Structure formats: C-alpha cells, structure tokens
C-alpha cells in the first residue's frame, strides 16, 4: 500500500510515460537536441548559401565600402565593399568543411596509431614518447610552424590543425584498446586462431566508436576555432577564401570603424561551435557517462 505522496508521484510518472517518444527523448537530452537543431540550422545555411545569399561573396564594390546594415546589405559591407551577410553564409561552408575534415582526419590517424600502440609493446614506448613531445607544443604554434613551411590552402590548413589534435586521439584510442584487449571475448577470438587484423576489425574498432565519436565532435568544434586563429595570425586559408577566420582577420584593421565585420562572423562561428559542443556534451551524457572522465 502506498502513501498518498507516492501515489501522486506514480500518477505523474505514468503521465510522462504516455508522452510520445520524441518528446520524452528531448526532455531527457535537452542539450543534445538543442545542439542538433542549431547545428542542422547552420548546415542548412551552409548548403543553401547560394540561394539565400543576396550577393556574390567575392564581388567587390568600392563605392559601397564599410556600409552599415541596410535593406540591400543586411549586415553591411566590409572594407572592400563586399556583402558581409553573403560572406558569412559562404563562410559557414569553409568552417564546417574544415571542422569535419580535421575531426575525420585526426580520428583516422589516431585510430591507426593508437591501435598499433595498444597492441605492440615496442611501438607503444616510441609512439607515446612522440605524442608526449607533440602535446608539449601549444597547438596553435605547431600548426603555425607547419603553415609557414607549406603553401596555404584549405587542405593544408586541415592538416596543420589536425596535427596537434592527433596525440589526444591516440591517447584515448590506446587506453581503450588496452582495456578492450583484456576482454575475454578478444582473448577467445585470438585463442581460436582468428588473425589479428580480423580481431581488430570485428571486435576492437567497433568498441572504440562510441567514445571516439564524442571526442571527434569536440575536435570538430575546436578545429573551427583554430581555423579562425590561423587566419587571424596570418597563417590560415588563402585570403581569397571567404572563411570566417579571414573575414575577422580583415576586419581587424577597421575594427574601430565597423565592429560588425568581426562581430557577425564571430557570432556565426560562436553559434556553430556552440552547436557542435552541445552535441558532443549531449552525446557523451547519452552514450556513456563513464567515458566523460577520459575526455
């Protein structure tokens, strides 16, 4: 027999249980759902940029320099008379592309190197030493050092940003592999003569996926910020690419006149990074609270 208080709570829970699944999911994972919606919105803006934009993002118009926001130029124009609104839309493409590429690139390298380290004692020592060394260099400086030596392009920027992220992925993958390889089912598979590559593909890599996806989303977020830093320091994508970083770097010289040139791409970048971070946080909480400690 229940007390009135418990009975009341039970009724309320019952009502919650009757809600549609989508609403229940959203109520339990508000961070993930909010982040996903925001990210989808940004993706849509990036994909449909040619249809939404009011101007060609690279079209210069010297007469219309540094115009405040108006009906024609929704967010005003920059020092070369280009439409900030259109450039911001196109900038989403570059930023998202760089972010996703860096995440995938560093994850792929990280899986490979981390797995090797996890399975080979000999390689492990060497690899972890190298990773320790890489982690000792502030990421921005490592990327800058590389960028001064190679020709700037979106692809080289991706490589330069991914390089300092790799040690973190390697460490995560290695620690996971070290745990997974002690699991009975891995040892059973090896004992029954399954060859190592097959064991890796069938049993180890799938178990890495959950924590790796969470970490990749955080790398994605920080890569977008790094792209902006590199452009801002003058070591990023070539100036003709309408990236958010380049827009803000160009806005530097006129920041006292037109704060908007930095502000609007900054807001767009902030919202996009926020969206990805929220998705990462949400995924982490949803998938496994225990891996939170390893990230």
């Amino acid at each position, binding site marked *: *027999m229940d007390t009135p208080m418990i009975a009341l709570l039970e009724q309320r829970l019952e009502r919650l249980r009757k809600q549609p699944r989508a609403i229940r999911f959203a109520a339990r994972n508000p961070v993930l759902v909010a982040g996903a919606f925001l990210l989808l919105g940004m993706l849509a803006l990036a994909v449909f940029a040619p249809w939404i934009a009011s101007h060609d993002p690279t079209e210069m118009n010297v007469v219309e320099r540094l115009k405040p926001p108006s009906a024609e130029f929704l967010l005003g124009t920059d020092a070369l008379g280009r439409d900030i609104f259109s450039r911001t839309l196109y900038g989403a493409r570059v930023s998202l592309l760089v972010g996703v590429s860096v995440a995938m690139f560093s994850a792929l390298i990280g899986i490979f190197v981390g797995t090797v380290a996890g399975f080979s004692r000999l390689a492990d020592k060497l690899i972890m030493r190298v990773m320790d060394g890489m982690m000792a260099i502030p990421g921005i400086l490592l990327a800058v050092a590389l960028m001064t030596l190679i020709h700037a392009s979106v692809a080289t920027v991706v490589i330069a940003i991914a390089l300092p992220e790799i040690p973190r992925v390697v460490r995560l993958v290695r620690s996971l592999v070290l745990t997974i390889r002690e699991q009975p089912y891995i040892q059973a598979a090896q004992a029954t003569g399954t060859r190592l590559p097959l064991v890796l593909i069938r049993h180890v890599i799938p178990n890495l996926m959950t924590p790796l996806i969470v970490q990749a989303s955080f790398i994605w977020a920080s890569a977008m910020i790094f792209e902006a830093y590199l452009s801002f320091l003058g070591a990023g994508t070539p100036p003709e690419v309408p990236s958010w970083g380049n827009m803000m770097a160009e806005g530097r010289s006129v920041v006292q006149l037109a704060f908007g040139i930095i502000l609007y791409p900054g807001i767009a970048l902030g919202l996009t990074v926020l969206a990805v971070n929220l998705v990462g946080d949400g995924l982490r909480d949803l998938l496994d609270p225990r891996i939170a400690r390893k990230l």
Partner: protein
Amino acid sequence: MTTPYPDQSPAAPILEVEDLRIAFVSRDGIVRAVDGVSWQLQPAEMLGIVGESGCGKSVSAMSVLKLLPGPPAMYSSGSIRFRGEELLTASEVRMRQLRGNAISMIFQDPMTSLNPVLTIGEQIAEVLILHQKLSKRAAWKRAGEMLDLVGIPEPNQRLRDYPHQFSGGMRQRAMISLALACNPAVLIADEPTTALDVTIQAQIMELLARLRREMGTAIVLITHDLGVVAECCDRVVVMYAGSKVEEATVDTLFARPCHPYTRGLLAAMPGLDMAADAGHRRLAEIPGMVPSLKQAAIGCRFAPRCAAAQECCHVTIPELVVVAREAPDHLAACFRACEAFRGELA
C-alpha cells in the same frame, strides 16, 4: 558531557523506527526501498538486521542519520525517534549535532571509508574537537586512548599514520574508534565485517561485543551473515524486499523460524554439522529472485518464491502478527506463521 536530551525513563527504547517508508524516485519509476518498517532498539542492546542485498536494510540504517542523498531518496512517511525526539523532521543543524556524537555509524569497506589524505589522528581528533569542544591537544590525547582501546599497538605513533599505512582490519578498528570517540548512545554498524578476511571478521565482532559491554553502547548490526547474528545479537529483525518479515530474540529465531524466508536463509547457512557429514547434505537455496520494488505490493512479496504459498498470499499483504501466545515478542508477517511455529509446516 553536554547532551541535552529530553528526560526519558530508563526502560524506554533509545531508538524507535516506526512505519518507515523510503522511496527512490527516478524517471524510470519509484523504487520502494523501505516499505513500512518498524523496529525498536533498547539501551545497550545489540539488534541484528538481516537480509539479502537490496532488501532495504542499509537504506533504513542510513536513514536514521538522514545520510541518504536528498533527491533521489525521499522519506514518504513514518517516524524515527531518538530518545523520543523525532529525527525525520529535525533540522540539518540538529542532525549534525547528533551525528558522530550521540549516534555513530561504521561502514562496510574500511579501505574506502577513511579519508586517504588525512592522518588517522586528524580524523579522530576532528570529531572530538567538533562535538566535545576539546582542545586540539586533548583531542589528540583522547584519540590515542581510543586507538589503544580498539587494540592498535603503539597508538600514539599510529595517530600520525595515513590510512594507506594501515591494514584492512586495523582500518576497521580505527573506524570503530572514530565512531565511538564521543561515546555515542547508538552505533549503527553497516556490514562491518563483510569486506574483511574471515579471521579478522571474528576479531572485529569480538571487539564490538567487548566495547558494547564496556561502554554500554546500543548497536544496530546490519548484516547478511546469520552466523554473526547468532553469536553477538540479542534480537533479530529479518527484512525482505523492503519489509520486515520476522522479528524475534536470537534464540527463538534460530530455534523456531516462522517466516518461510527466514527458514530459507537458515537452510542456506552452512552449519557446524555440515563439516561432520560433508558431501551428504547440500546447502539449500531459495529459488527465484528478489522482486522488483518498482510496483506497489499487492500480496506477500515473498510468495512467488515460497513453497508454502497459498492463494491468499498472492492477493493480500500479510500483517505482522505475534506467532503464538507463548512467544509474545516473536513476530512474523506470514499467514502460515502459527503453523510454522508449531512445527506443522514441512
């Protein structure tokens, strides 16, 4: 000592738990961890509370000091009275005055229950400075005496040690000295020997029994080990799935268990006679599993696992009743308790 308690006649129980109900609320449902449990503790008595893990025995013990974390744990009704004072509605400040001072607690795992970064002396002296208002010097002196009392050699040197420099048995001794430092009226021991080696277990139980005699502390011993209960306790409460199913003095309970669950527990206990004809008798087991506590009880919680269950057991909750006129303090919550008491149940 300054202990401002309301006047109490000496015969009155020191601790009374009455119709206590505790629920854990989560999105997945409400778990009725303790579902209407009552018991009383007399001064200087040792009461055993026995049951499987998850039966609510630890939860009800933690609730005496209100140590359960605030949500999700919820006290839905009942009463806990210490020397007549209601604790469930007492303020946090009042509870802090009682904790470690009038009512103390020791826990299952001595390896994790002591703070690793503070010395044993700091941890014992802290409670003395807080409750007894001793000076730091006096508190350390008293802490040394306490370690001596629980049988730790060279107590004054060991006070400066950190927990990791103590063995498991010594840590539990230190825990006990910490709990008894302020000479509490009630000690709640939550599975104090479970995590220890068998030989150490006996030493710790001996120590508790001796300290009870010397200091007159009433002890609530929570355990799943009926052997420990048989040796040390005066009275036993048997819990199953959040409810009290049987209560009796130790002798009666072991001689004439009335609830089928108690009988099952006793049958599952390896006895001395086992050693004699090992291989001939197998340990009995109780079939089935502990039921989910997410639904409110309709019938007897034990009925699905009970060989003696009748139709009424599944639809009506059996009340706790006196099993026989000649045993007025022997209670059981079973429709067939009287039959069992008279030995009529197979």
